[in-house]
């Protein structure tokens, strides 16, 4: 039942002509790529790929049970080795994003588990993971108060802002910022930064990322409608 959807193909062609700093890399998704889960998706942003899986609402371990809402659990699996503290931090960030997104009060005493597997990290990995998890939640038809879209930007040494940086841009740049927006008012749900930057650079990055987030939301809608119409 897997389907391979390539959206933004025209954007990809345009990208070769237009200034490459202000465009997202090509987004592709495969909804329902696994069969035993309630929701699963494999999402690639350019060459960065991650696999997200959702189980739930399901039974919860007694020790983690909350009487008024569902427990959101999130597990991040790195490509090689055991999870390190940096991965724990990533888990915590994503967990609190989805705790705010999912309407947990609808399912008291149950658990919603999101599992993320990093398949290829070639820049903007956190953003890719968040987008994949959001799409997987949509695939699992979990009730959410809003969708989230993550967009990363990097700041080069001369202050130039690059949208959706590749691994190379991230390493060369002075700073990188990942913004997460909600789908209702495009307000900022989450910000994660690394490296030093000025307030002007932050503002420029925010504007650029906010504009790009609309494309990500459109991509979510396209992916879902293709899945449902088929």
């Amino acid at each position, binding site marked *: 039942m897997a389907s391979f959807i390539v959206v933004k193909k025209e954007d990809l062609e345009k990208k070769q002509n237009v200034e490459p700093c202000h465009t997202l890399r090509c987004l592709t998704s495969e909804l329902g790529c696994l069969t035993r889960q309630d929701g699963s998706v494999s999402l690639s942003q350019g060459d960065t790929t991650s696999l997200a899986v959702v189980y739930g609402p399901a039974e919860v371990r007694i020790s983690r049970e909350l009487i008024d809402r569902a427990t959101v659990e999130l597990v991040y699996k790195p490509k090689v080795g055991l999870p390190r503290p940096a991965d724990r931090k990533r888990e915590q960030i994503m967990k609190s994003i989805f705790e705010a997104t999912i309407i947990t009060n609808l399912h008291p005493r149950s658990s919603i588990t999101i599992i993320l597997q990093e398949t290829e990290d070639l820049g903007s990995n956190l953003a890719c993971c968040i987008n994949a998890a959001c799409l997987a939640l949509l695939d699992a038809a979990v009730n959410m108060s809003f969708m989230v879209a993550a967009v990363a930007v990097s700041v080069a040494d001369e202050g130039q802002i690059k949208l959706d940086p590749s691994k190379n841009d991230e390493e060369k740049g002075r700073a990188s910022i990942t913004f997460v927006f909600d789908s209702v008012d495009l307000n900022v749900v*989450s910000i994660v930064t690394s490296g030093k930057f000025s307030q002007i650079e932050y503002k420029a990055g925010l504007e650029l990322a906010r504009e790009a987030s609309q494309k990500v939301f459109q991509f979510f809608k396209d992916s879902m409608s293709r899945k449902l119409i088929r």
Partner: protein
Amino acid sequence: MADQYRIAQPKDYYRQFLEKDVRPDNRGLGEYRATVMNIGCVSTAEGSSLVKIGNTTVMCGIKAEVAEPGVDGKNGYLVPNVELSPLCSANFRPGPPGELAQVLSQNMADLIADSQCVKLENLCVCPGKLVWVLHIDLVCLDYDGNLMDACTLAMMSALKSTSLPVVTVDEESGEIKTDPSSRTLLPVSCCPVSTTLIVFDNKLLLVDPTSEEESLATGAVTVVTEGKNVCSIYKPGGTPLTDKQIRDCIERGFIRGKEARSLIEETLCSVDR
């Protein structure tokens, strides 16, 4: 009566106060708790400090040891570790570090890397042979919210007071000699300061939350500033904030940054070396 109300309806209890722009502990919404700092309190450590923000108490000790460098041959190591034992709060259990402790340790490591306050090449003793490893141990003694700010302040003040013994390596025999009588200060190029705010009822921003306020919060933002630059804005999920609210957070961060840096400088001056 008020105590029962506080336990039974904590959110309503807070709302009554916040309507009048004051918090139950008599602070304004943008006000920090009193910050107390003591530098050099652990005489066996290379650098140490004790920081109190209100009741939250964090002690930082920096121990140095020498080790062989990695493949690049000249970079030393900084190993921050935050310990949250059952001593500081009933929320923590004995055993391996919990999620919060791991995330805080990672935040401390990221803070050093982002701000470049201690350059790893400055920790080189003898290129290709010997480098310093600084173990930064942060122990929470009393947990009453806002650990991130207390840990940052404790770590930076301890780093600023760290002095390392002079070590020489004999070229021929490879023997390592330490001269404990002469010490050099660790070069710390800048001093990042973090400011944490929480979101209450999806709209109000409260600076420097207590643990009670943290448990009622619908989101948190931590801004780390250094001079005129922002080192990090860390908002892990929670309520979406408007641009203006985030701008307010950043501005508050700069004000706190100035205060905290002058506090560190003053305390450093009062310590006799």
